[in-house]
């Protein structure tokens, strides 16, 4: 149907990439205020937003996308998925989600990212332009590795940045080799303590021998526990995937004891300690749709988790949305559906939009990202309706100021069999 139009639009847009792109008649959710700018003209140049102006004019020669009064939002960000690291879950040769190397505590999934994945085409078609791509559990408890930021532009290279965090997993039965979660916390604390001692020793004058400790934090490519020095230096957060109230409090205590930034991932029972998290300025990346406890750690799972946390002042972003198959295979659709569910369960609409735009970018290291402010990255989506309704589709997805493909393998198959009788 719209395929031909899309291709033509793409053909038109590509050579004009360095030129001006104008989205007209947009209901522009700039995320700078709580309300959209009506009938906005959004001007884009060199991959950046130039302006958002009500009824604004279009410069000569600009490529125009008419939004027809429909919503335009910043490109959405999934705050925790594995799109780009896996093709077919049951085909291990296509799964690059985790390290099986028990000699090395670190795992940097950046070199495995695959922009040619059919999952990338689908997540982009669903209006998601960025994600935190997190590693699966390693063989080196309690660490999984270092998540990366993917930007789902066309083409094979979807890596935006590395080392967005150090990712740890703690919970009931999470690590066979450690047993009790008490031991899991001990291992995490020991890693932080060892790193702290090492850094202190270096700073205490062993400057000649500092090579022995590897490059100083912030430079070079380090891995695993070594990267924890970056956490201690405040360069990146420690992401802890955990659910139970007692573990979330442990994480809060850990953050205070080591003066580090912590992000709770999953956090099914985070709502129970919303005030404590707010006071400690610990954000939560959560699945807004979960209301059934997959494990005893999640007994408190409820769909107003995000509403309660947000009301208390905890920054919330959505990820892992839909659980099971959806958190990867429908990481775009499930993210929007989950955000809609959060609204249905008391989260103000604009906060739900923030939880899939501004908040994930801020939490994972790009403060100021996820808006349509002048100078912001020109990643935006023109929708055919409310983006939080699962029945809404992305009409145009613009990434780095270019119109990107919104055609997935599913579209191609459906078109082939469209007239099967």
């Amino acid at each position, binding site marked *: *149907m*719209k395929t031909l139009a899309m291709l033509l639009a793409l053909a038109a847009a590509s050579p004009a990439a360095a030129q001006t792109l104008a989205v007209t008649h947009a209901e522009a959710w700039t995320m700078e205020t709580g309300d959209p700018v009506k009938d906005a003209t959004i001007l884009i140049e060199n991959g950046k937003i130039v302006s958002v102006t009500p009824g604004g004019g279009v410069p000569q020669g600009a490529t125009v996308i008419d939004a027809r009064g429909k919503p335009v939002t910043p490109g959405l960000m999934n705050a925790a998925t594995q799109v780009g690291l896996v*093709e*077919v*879950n*049951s*085909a291990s040769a296509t799964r690059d989600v985790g390290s099986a190397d028990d000699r090395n505590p670190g795992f940097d999934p950046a070199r495995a990212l695959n922009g040619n994945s*059919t*999952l990338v085409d689908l997540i982009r078609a669903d209006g998601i332009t960025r994600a935190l791509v997190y590693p699966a559990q390693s063989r080196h408890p309690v660490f999984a590795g270092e998540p990366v930021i993917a930007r789902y532009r066309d083409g094979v290279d979807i890596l935006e940045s590395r080392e967005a965090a150090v990712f740890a997993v703690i919970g009931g039965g999470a690590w066979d080799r450690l047993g009790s979660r008490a031991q899991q916390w001990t291992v995490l604390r020991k890693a932080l303590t060892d790193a702290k001692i090492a850094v202190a020793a270096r700073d205490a004058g062993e400057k000649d021998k500092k090579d022995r400790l590897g490059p100083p934090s912030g430079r070079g490519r380090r891995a695993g526990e070594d990267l924890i020095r970056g956490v201690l230096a405040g360069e990146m957060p420690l992401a802890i995937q955990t659910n139970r*109230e007692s573990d979330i409090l442990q994480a809060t205590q850990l953050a205070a004891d080591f003066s580090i930034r912590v992000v709770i991932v999953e956090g099914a029972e985070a709502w129970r300690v919303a005030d404590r998290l707010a006071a400690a300025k610990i954000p939560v990346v959560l699945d807004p*749709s*979960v*209301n*059934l*406890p*997959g*494990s*005893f750690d*999640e*007994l*408190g*799972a*409820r769909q107003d988790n995000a509403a309660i946390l947000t009301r208390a002042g905890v920054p919330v972003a959505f990820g892992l949305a*839909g*659980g*099971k*198959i*959806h958190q990867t*295979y*429908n990481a775009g*659709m499930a993210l929007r*559906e989950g955000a*809609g*569910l959060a*609204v*249905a369960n008391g989260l103000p609409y604009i906060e739900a939009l923030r939880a899939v735009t501004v908040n994930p970018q801020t939490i994972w290291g790009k403060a100021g990202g996820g808006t349509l402010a002048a100078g912001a990255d020109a990643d935006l989506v023109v929708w055919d309706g409310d983006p*939080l*309704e*699962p*029945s*809404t*589709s992305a009409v145009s997805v613009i990434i780095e100021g270019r119109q990107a493909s919104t055609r997935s393998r*599913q*579209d191609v*198959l*459906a*078109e082939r*069999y*469209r007239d*099967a*009788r």
Partner: protein
Amino acid sequence: MAKNMALGSGLAAITLLAAPVPGTAQQAAAPARADPFPSNYRTPRPDDMLLRNATILDGAGGRIEGGDVLVRGGKIVATGKALANPGVREVDAKGRWITPGVIDVHTHNGTFVVPLTDIDRESSDVAETSSPNGADTWIETAVNPQDMGFDRGLMNGVTTMQILPGSTPIFAGRSVVVKPVRGATVWDMKVTGGAQGFKMACGENPKSWGGDKDNDGPNSRQGVIAYMRQAFLDAQAYGRDRAAGKAGRDLKKEALLGIMAGDIRVNLHCYRANDIASVLAVAKEFGFKIGAIHHATEAYKIPGLLRASGTCAAVWADWWGFKMEAQDAVRAGAPMLERAGVCVMMHSDSAADGQRLNITAAKAAAAGRRIGIETPPEVMIKWTTSNPAKLLGLESRVGTLKPGYQADLVLWSGNPFSIYTKADLVLIDGAVAWDRSKPPGAPVSDFELGRKGAQ
């Protein structure tokens, strides 16, 4: 031969219930109809009411704007505009929508019970997997009614669920249909009067089981199909021996005879077009009809085949990709099948997704729109109400808002295909099963009682 047995089995059933001894050819098929686990479901005390001025989707393709529904004595009495009130409670439904209660034909509630623990990993109740043939099992003997999945479903407008055994065995056994009401046993929830359901599976799941060196079963697609045919042939031979007084009871073979006699309806777990076609051929060979292909991610490639065999497709909107046989799923499957004249319905296979089957329908319809197939709400609602009722053999009782039907219905806060909409009021058999406006709020399973849970 199968046809003859079907004709005779009705008369023989009573005799056989009383005296399960070898008998005539007609009698041999009858045990399949007998129910060793009778329902103890009690019709609730009715809450008569007149719901006023709603958008009504009747489940069968009809739509009334500003319409009323009169519910009395557990039944739908009338739908229409400006109905006279015979003196019952009135509910102002202006701006809200009314549909039949949602029917999910594929859950594992009560057997895949969260929170999952070690015992579920070692020996799950989802299916009996000691053999590829579990035709003798009845899933209801495993169902834990304290699964909070039932409550979550009810609160989201689900009024009927079919609990199926899992897809590891080729013949996985009998299903049970329940209402998501609180009871100490599954029989307090059990729905009778429909078709006795049964689960079969093809493709990757059963062949993977056979592929495990510790297991004795077929390990290829062709092996699975051959196993099915041989099992039906053996059941036929058994039926003859039984008729001749040369064989005693055999629960597995009785079930397969019941399938061939049309007394037991098959729900087939199958993904690929080729797999679906293979099993449809087996069904044809042995003279029975398959009720629905579940998952059916490639059904959209072969609508004619499903139409010709009178078989429905029970699909997701958007599960895809996680294994090889699920590669070609498309979100537009349901609208493509609908347009081709195939009976299609949404199903969940998940206590989480089962809470939002109408949203699943909305996703599918939206994907249809992307390729130029429009599906209006009054048709979409068939996918979660009257079509699943048909599969369960309950199409003259539930799934449609028509006079005389059981009053299983939902008053939604808005358009049921919107993510923001909630089930305000859920009636089962004309009684309030869930009222969002009234404390104490959500129904609580015994499991949740006294724990620091979500409530």
